[in-house]
């Protein structure tokens, strides 16, 4: 590139002479001619500059110009070829990252939803939930305990009634004994009546014909006493049978009652045992639901933190977009630089500040400014996480 300026002695000589003359005129004529001298000198300087420009342009040979143009063309083609691909890669990466983070956030959301559902179902099943529709485990347990308690109470009440009935049956034995005594009394009276009738018959026979009617009466009394004795025996027999039947029934009822008492104690023990198992199970379920709830709260906190961290993708995405947009300006800048050369034959250095200035205009975040200013690693804006302004 040393020939691009093209300033050799052929160019510098007229410029030096014209410039020197102009400055000399300014210095010498300032006092006498004032502004007229200055204007003249300025005209001389302009003429010198124009002659140098023309000389510089004409000083480059055709081969050198062609080389410069080739170089600028190649540089422009380089920009046109490379920059779009770089930008597409950046944009593609940015898009992929955004999609991946959106997907990740969606999965976090799904985890939190499922966890909520699990906690809700578990709390409902264990009866720890705020709402109650009577179908939770603890509610079912409580209801079952009450119902089974009622069954046990009813059974105990039935047993008590049965014991009372048994006592009444035992009382019947006393009545049958009394009845047997009474039947024996009847038999005794019949025997005595028979004896009395026999004595009357003897006395009637002794009275002769006058006692014949009395003898008939005595015979009838004997017949009646025989029938009374027979009836007394029948009553006694029947009472004996009834007494035996009552005794047998009483013994059977007593045996049954003892059996039922044992069954009752056994059933009560089994119910207690089942309720105890059930209680332990519901207690474990409630503890498990509590633990799940605590773990859920912890996980939700972790997910909350993750959501804060995931937002850095948005910041990175913005920075990448700003840099990509800025890179996309480079081909136009190269083209403009080449056009300037084509128009004025002036080969200007590329102005990086223009691009950087454009880049700076896109910054939205403090850390972008910090990085631009030379910081290698701008601190994450942790404090900004709490920043909120109400209007």
């Amino acid at each position: 590139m040393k020939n691009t300026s093209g300033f050799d002695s052929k160019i510098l000589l007229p410029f030096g002479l014209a410039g020197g003359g102009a400055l000399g005129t300014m210095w010498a004529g300032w006092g006498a001619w004032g502004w007229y001298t200055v204007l003249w000198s300025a005209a001389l300087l302009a003429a010198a500059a124009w002659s140098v420009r023309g000389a510089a342009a004409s000083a480059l040979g055709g081969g050198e110009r062609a080389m410069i143009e080739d170089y600028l063309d190649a540089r422009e083609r380089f920009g046109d070829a490379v920059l779009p691909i770089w930008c597409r890669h950046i944009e593609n990466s940015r898009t992929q990252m955004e999609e991946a983070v959106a997907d990740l956030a969606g999965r976090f959301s799904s985890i939190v939803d499922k966890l909520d559902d699990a906690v809700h179902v578990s709390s409902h099943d264990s009866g720890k939930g705020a709402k109650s529709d009577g179908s939770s485990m603890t509610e079912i347990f409580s209801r079952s305990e009450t119902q089974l308690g009622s069954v046990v109470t009813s059974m105990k009440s039935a047993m008590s009634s049965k014991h009372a009935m048994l006592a009444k049956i035992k009382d019947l034995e006393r009545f049958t004994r009394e009845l047997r005594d009474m039947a024996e009394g009847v038999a005794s009276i019949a025997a005595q009546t028979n004896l009395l009738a026999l004595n009357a018959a003897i006395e009637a026979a002794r009275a002769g014909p006058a006692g014949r009617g009395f003898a008939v009466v005595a015979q009838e009394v004997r017949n009646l006493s025989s029938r009374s004795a027979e009836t007394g025996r029948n009553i006694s027999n029947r009472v004996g049978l009834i007494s035996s039947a009552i005794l047998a029934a009483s013994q059977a009822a007593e045996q049954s009652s003892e059996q039922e008492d044992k069954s009752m104690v056994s059933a009560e023990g089994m119910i207690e045992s089942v309720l105890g198992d059930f209680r332990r199970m519901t207690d474990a379920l409630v503890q498990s639901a509590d633990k799940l709830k605590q773990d859920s709260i912890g996980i939700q906190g972790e997910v909350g933190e993750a959501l804060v961290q995931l937002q850095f993708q948005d910041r990175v995405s913005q920075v990448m977009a700003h840099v990509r947009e800025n890179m996309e300006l480079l081909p136009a800048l190269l083209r403009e630089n080449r056009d300037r050369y084509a128009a004025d034959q002036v080969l200007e250095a590329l102005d990086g500040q223009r691009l950087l200035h454009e880049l700076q205009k896109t910054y939205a975040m403090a850390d972008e400014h910090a990085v631009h200013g030379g910081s290698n690693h701008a601190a994450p804006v942790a404090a900004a996480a709490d920043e909120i302004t109400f209007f």
Partner: protein
Amino acid sequence: MAKTIMVVDDSASLRQVVGIALKGAGYEVIEGRDGVDALSKCTGQKIHLVVCDVNMPNMDGITFVREFKQLPLYKFTPVIMLTTESQESKKEEGKAAGAKAWVVKPFKPEVLLGAVAKLVMP
């Protein structure tokens, strides 16, 4: 009945993140990819609050808020700007457009939810 919040952000991941926070607190969420998309969804349904980004393609957040506030149905609907911008001049623009609060990203869900609970229409 759940209240409806419109989330306007060109970043799908940010819409997701904001959506998770809001849905977790019991709000219904409708999304807009940018100002134009969001305005096309303001079709008469009740919107109790808007959470809006500032820098977006097609129509930026400040312009969106200005136009949103011109719609008679949403004149009094509160807007929270949620953005990486923290410059006072930008905040003033948001305030002038009609925003009620300015939250800087990255936000903590509880901070955003606090602002939402404070401003959401009854």
